[in-house]
């Protein structure tokens, strides 16, 4: 049972990393960023190469992999997303989908289609009361909670964060104050993409790695964003962990149905709380 809880929290933490970017980009820019799958996958593949290159310094490789994503996401924001502000959501969706198609094909070009195996970088278990819990999963949960605290600090105390929160509420109002909103949007976009890459980097050792790995995780984190509310930071945090628990409890009784259950929860939420975007 405790193993189920730890498993659920670690999945929830990964979902939180990925959905926070999705939620922020939607809340500020009104863009559903399908290219999020791409930044996530690029982070993972960069990690593979860097781990092989640095021969085992996992932490350093993980940090570098997150930094690799930053220029790529800036290019996506500058040349694709920025041209689509105020357009219909369909076109932004199609354009970002096209970006992810191109990116996935580039990944297949460079790294090939075959899945990569990757082992747990710590590989040790925490033993107590006759239970064995993988330390790596516990570490993921701790990083997620630290990140939540850090993001809260960022959005409440720093000026950049305050501008972003204000823009979530009223974009035109912020622009009227003479603030260049687009610049802050691109910061938010890059932050979201980097967090997605961080989620990918942390999740890679405990999942399977292949070029299309981003799709199912994007759908899950989209469910998180719908349940938690678009652009709602605290809601995203709570719903990510709640849905992570849903996944792990379902997996305990019916291992194949874990993802399906998340979408069923999302459907129930949509019945009672229709959203209008």
């Amino acid at each position, binding site marked *: 049972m405790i193993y189920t809880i730890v498993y659920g929290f670690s999945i929830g933490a990964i979902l939180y990393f990925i959905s926070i970017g999705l939620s922020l980009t939607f809340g500020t820019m009104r863009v559903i960023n399908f290219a999020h799958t791409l930044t996530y996958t690029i982070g993972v593949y960069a990690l593979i190469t860097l781990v092989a290159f640095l021969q085992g310094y996992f932490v350093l490789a993980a940090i570098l992999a997150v930094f690799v994503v930053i220029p790529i996401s800036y290019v996506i924001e500058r040349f694709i997303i920025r041209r689509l502000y105020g357009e219909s959501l*369909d076109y932004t969706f199609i*354009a970002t989908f096209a970006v992810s198609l191109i990116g996935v094909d580039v990944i297949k*070009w460079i790294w090939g289609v075959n899945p990569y195996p990757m082992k747990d970088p710590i590989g040790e278990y925490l033993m107590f009361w006759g239970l064995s819990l993988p330390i790596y999963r516990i570490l993921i949960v701790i990083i997620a909670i630290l990140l939540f605290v850090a993001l809260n600090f960022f959005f409440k105390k720093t000026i950049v964060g305050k501008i972003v929160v204000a823009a979530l509420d009223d974009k035109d109002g912020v622009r009227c104050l003479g603030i260049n909103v687009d610049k802050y949007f691109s910061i938010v976009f890059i932050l979201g993409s980097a967090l997605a890459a961080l989620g990918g980097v942390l999740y890679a050792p405990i999942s399977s790695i292949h070029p299309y790995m981003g799709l199912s995780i994007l759908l899950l984190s989209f469910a998180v964003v719908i349940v938690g509310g678009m652009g709602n930071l605290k809601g995203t945090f709570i719903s990510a962990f709640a849905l992570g628990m849903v996944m792990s409890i379902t997996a305990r009784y019916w291992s194949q149905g874990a993802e399906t259950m998340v*979408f069923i929860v999302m459907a129930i939420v949509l019945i009672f709380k229709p959203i209008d975007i």
Partner: protein
Amino acid sequence: MPLKNAPAKDYGAIGFLVIASGFLLITPILSTHRVTDFMIFCIFAMSFDLLYGYMGRLSFGHMLFLGTGAYGAGLFIKYINGNPLLAILVGIAVAGLLGMLLGLIIVRTTGACFALINLAFNHIGFFLVLSPLREITRGEDGFGVSASKLGFLNLGSRPIMFGFVLLCLLLVFYFLKRLISSPYGIMIRSIKEDETRVRFLGYNTYLYKWLTFVLAGSIAGLAGALTALNYNYVNPNAMDVNSNVGVVFACLIGGAGNLYGALIGGVTYMIISNFLPIYIHRWEMFLGFSLLIITFRFRKGVWGYFQGVWENIVKKKVIGKPIEEGVADL
């Protein structure tokens, strides 16, 4: 073909002739089997166009209904009865029923949310077919479908299948054409323009959206059932989540919101996807770049472009001077 009922000013009869002769003309160049496949995809593209082009709801999970139709028809033939016509009806009915159920939830959303929820359900469907229902659907391997002969209607023979699919295509085309020029069609087109206003006028937009969703699902189910009969084979590729981009591409390049556009787009996409991968290895990248170009520069599609050119010519004749000047005078 009930041609005399077609609206006169739409040149209905000519349209049918052009479509039929167009498909017959490309048959000798390509092969009968391939063109049959093209026409099935065109039926699918038209059903998508009803949803996206006319009602303005972009779905990224329309393959779900194609797959449901294919599996419905295939399983019916495999386990119950070999009659192909009944199987097609079952395929349409199953896809329609699924549309009725999912529509209750999906239709509540719009925009990218609509697209992603469809995608999520498509993902679930693909997964269900692949593993929990493995005993019935044979998972990844799929199963063979052999329909029995019905008198002269032997769908195993290529030319008869070709004729049958062409008939289905024309029927669907006629049905959608009539549907779209009816008051119902005007209603869904106004929902695309501004749903709030339509609701202000006192119409229950929810019902109309739901109905359109079910109709689009059923027609996609027809396309799925025909796919199963055409290949004599059903496997999870019929429901593949990543194939959705094909129909979106077809609809956009042909010109969304026009049935001729959907047909042109469907044929274009099928030609590209059948022949380009032979020459270009990085085929998904090509698709991605062309989608980007369409979104930024070519939103009206091929049909919309030629329509614009045609209207320019006609207006120049009427007014006698270029449109820009005419507008400036106003």
